[in-house]
């Protein structure tokens, strides 16, 4: 199975390649990609250099242009597609159907992958994207169980890629409005979930308080691992109880289920984390590379060291092992 690895900077890109990635995904330094954070991402020249580096090591480069176009400003997204094709991207990861149409018409030879942001989670949706735009691969939303993935794989003709490690979104990928509600900016339209410009951390006695816009997201007592300041990971007062209404501050880790995913028809394993540093990329990719090649009995020991890199320093298998339905 292919290992698809994140890179937010050229340095992280090289680390991913050197650590054993089969493909590295990255994005431009603007609103066209869903990790549009300050100081992150690639200029055109940086992408050109990165693709050349990857090719020398027989590694593919996927370019994520996976936000939704704004009416009247489509040129930003069209230019991103044209430039990524010109620079030699091995695949474009797209979410917007209009942008998929543009790509299919202008660059029919370009390999197109359906982003997780497109929320293509059933056979009809995937078939439509394959037949209409020639999509070669779908990145499945993190809402399906492994048996769900297996059933879907039997009904579709394109390759399947799934997230196996890293940050975890609520089950409305590509449609989540929580960040918009609190800050006016969203991952879907602006490429930023809980933009740093709206985030504040402050100490209140022994507690660490995280705030997003005008909202207090969480209060972490001394000694408790912290999480990202997103509303979905916020601690809320509900009736008489205080707790996590949407999800806990934990990261996804389903590497224990590699064999089951392979049997289900998954061809590519994706690591989340373009916003993370090169130290994260180097560590996670190298461990994952070894884990994919290792015997199932050896994997837990390999993977346990990754927990401390995770949000909240805890991991979950999320919907892949859905127990609440």
């Amino acid at each position, binding site marked *: 199975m292919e290992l698809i690895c994140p890179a*937010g*900077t*050229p*340095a*992280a890109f090289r680390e991913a390649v050197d*650590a054993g990635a089969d493909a590295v995904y990255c994005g431009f330094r603007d609103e066209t990609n869903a990790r549009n*954070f*300050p*100081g*992150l991402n690639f200029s055109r020249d940086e992408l050109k250099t990165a693709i050349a580096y990857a090719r020398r090591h027989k590694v593919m480069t996927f370019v994520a242009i996976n936000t939704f176009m704004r009416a009247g400003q489509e040129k930003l997204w069209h230019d991103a597609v044209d430039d990524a094709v010109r620079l030699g991207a091995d695949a474009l990861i797209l979410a917007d159907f209009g942008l998929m149409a543009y790509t299919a018409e202008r660059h029919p030879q370009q390999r197109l992958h359906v982003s997780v942001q497109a929320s293509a989670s059933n056979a009809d949706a995937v078939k439509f994207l394959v037949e209409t735009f020639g999509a070669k691969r779908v990145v499945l939303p993190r809402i399906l169980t492994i048996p769900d993935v297996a059933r879907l794989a039997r009904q579709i003709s394109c390759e399947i890629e799934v997230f196996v490690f890293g940050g975890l979104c609520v089950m409305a990928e590509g449609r989540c409005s929580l960040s918009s509600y609190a800050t006016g900016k969203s991952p879907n339209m602006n490429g930023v979930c809980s*933009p*740093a*410009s709206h*985030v*504040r*951390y*402050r*100490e209140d006695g022994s507690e*660490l308080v995280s705030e997003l816009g005008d909202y207090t997201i969480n209060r*972490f007592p*001394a*000694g*408790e*691992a*912290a*999480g990202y300041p997103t509303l979905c990971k916020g601690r809320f007062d509900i009736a008489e109880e205080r707790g996590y209404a949407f999800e806990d501050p934990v990261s996804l880790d389903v590497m224990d289920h590699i064999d089951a995913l392979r049997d289900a028809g998954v061809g590519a394993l994706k690591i989340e984390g373009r*916003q*993370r*540093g*090169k*130290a*994260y990329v*180097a*560590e996670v990719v*190298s461990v994952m590379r070894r884990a994919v090649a290792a015997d199932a009995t050896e994997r837990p020991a390999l993977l346990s060291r990754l927990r*401390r*890199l*995770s*949000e*909240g*320093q805890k991991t979950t298998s999320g919907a892949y092992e859905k127990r609440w339905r």
Partner: protein
Amino acid sequence: MTLPFAMTAPLRFAPLPLIEHATRLVFAQVVRQYPDLFDRLGEHADKRYAFVPTDLPLVFLIEPAARRISVHHKPHLPAADACMGGTFVLLLALLEGQLDGDAVFFSRSLTITGDMEAMLALRNALDDCNIDLPADIARMSGPFAPLVRRAASEIRTRALSGEAARWN
């Protein structure tokens, strides 16, 4: 790793101009070695960034636009737009990209206050530069460069050996 008191105590009494002069020499060497270091900051280059080592009696203030670093004695904290706190070794490891900033933040080993966007931009800018302090300090050491580099590398290895989430 927290620096032992015996190692940090002399800094309480050392003349500040002397400490600042040494710090500026290293800072100038790093800026010379990585001229693109602050390019990724964009609009945040004009901000002031304070670094507060929890185990040193000192505060470091970096002003990227002016390519300037200044050193201050605690408890005096210079005015800053964003502030990062942690052990001295942790801050140096982040400077070099040896540790993942998010991971140490989750573990509560690192505190960030003030302008989060500016600090995030600086973190990403630093992460993209392959700063290697032992090598950079060695370049300033003339004929002693190989010796200084070996010694500094050894100190770094030992200092980071106990840190979680260390880069391979």
